[in-house]
């Protein structure tokens, strides 16, 4: 399983990240968050070669002017580095749909991958990643994740510390 993360290149405006930051600030949840970077996340499962994954990331999922991509192995290992409730300066919140919840973008990606000429059965899950920096703790991040970034009725989130 691969995780493809799409980010806005630094020289371009990340309006979605800025919007989340202003939401956090105006919600009164925390005053410690200084910056939010938004990334979209595609979790792709199927018998794909690394080349094919690269092609999907570069030709389909990212915009080659304003966006870049990062491919990682996606699996249970990721959930290991949970935060303690001490302050950290950087963290990532990942939000994905719970199993069984309709993921409309996913079916579009499956179609579009076929259009690329990759005729393989794949499964796609979509999600969001928010990279936050500032004065953060597990409590703050949990509150942000629950109150602003996800609805735990249909989505689940993970919090990871990042370097």
């Amino acid at each position, binding site marked *: 399983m691969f995780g493809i993360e799409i980010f806005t290149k630094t020289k371009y405006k990340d309006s979605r990240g*800025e919007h989340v930051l202003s939401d956090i600030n105006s919600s009164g949840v925390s005053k410690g968050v200084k910056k939010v970077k938004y990334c979209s996340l595609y979790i792709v499962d199927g018998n794909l070669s690394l080349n094919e994954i690269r092609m999907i990331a570069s*030709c*389909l999922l990212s*915009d080659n002017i*304003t966006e870049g991509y990062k491919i990682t192995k996606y699996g249970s290992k990721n959930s290991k580095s949970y935060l303690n409730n001490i302050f950290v300066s950087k963290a990532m919140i990942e939000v994905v749909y719970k199993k069984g919840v309709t993921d409309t973008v996913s079916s579009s990606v499956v*179609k*579009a991958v076929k*259009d690329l000429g990759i005729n393989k059965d794949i499964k796609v899950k979509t999600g969001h990643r928010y990279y936050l920096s500032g004065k953060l703790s597990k409590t703050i991040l949990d509150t942000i994740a629950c109150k602003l970034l996800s609805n735990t009725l249909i989505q689940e989130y993970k919090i990871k510390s990042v370097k």
Partner: protein
Amino acid sequence: MKKVKVLILRTAGTNCDLETQNAFELCGASVERLHINFLVNNKNKILDYDILAFPGGFSYGDDIASGKILANEIKNKLGSQVKKFALSSRPIIGICNGFQVLVKMGLLPESELCDQKSTLSYNDSNKFECRWVYLKTEQKSSCIWTKNLPSVINLPVAHSEGKFIPKDKELLSKLNKGNQVVFRYSTKDGKEPKYPLCPNGSAENIAGICNKKGNIFGLMPHPERYIFPLQHPRRESSGSEYGWGKIIFQNAVNAVK
């Protein structure tokens, strides 16, 4: 006089095809709206037409990014036919989602290359913006679609990904020098606008561009929504019984007559 034949390409999520058809028909053209599945199965059908239009909407829900999936699909399945059509100097227009498709498949701004050199990204406001704007028309533009327009016109926009970003400064100056910039968002007097008169934060307030030859035109505003004065917020006309949007379609129809 021959009847000008227009092809409006549609797919899942296309939704401005009907009013675009009406606009062309009002200009005396005969119009067919065909689904991409049909065209993929009848590849050379495209070449039967005089004008090709990519209408507005949310092709495939604008999932991943606006126009992206349709741009890829056309490129991979109909690329050579569309390119052939473009190089034969026949008029092509991409409106809103259609513009996003043209840019993302690389038919604009350099149709010869068919390589994505610019993009339409998220509005600075991070919001969908539905409003009327002032557009300054670049009088020197080589675009065949925008002849006979006054220096400033009104059209409505409705998009959340309309911020035009060229790959680099060289491309931007090339567009300027080559008279490929067709419309810029402006104030009422054609001056530099601020948000919301520039609804998206485009580079140099660019709202529409064409290729070097001027036959391929892409724009975020919706000319098909200003065919009659009644559609204008103040019911202004273009000095005739029509709105300025109609003149744009008329230009292309006249050009191939």
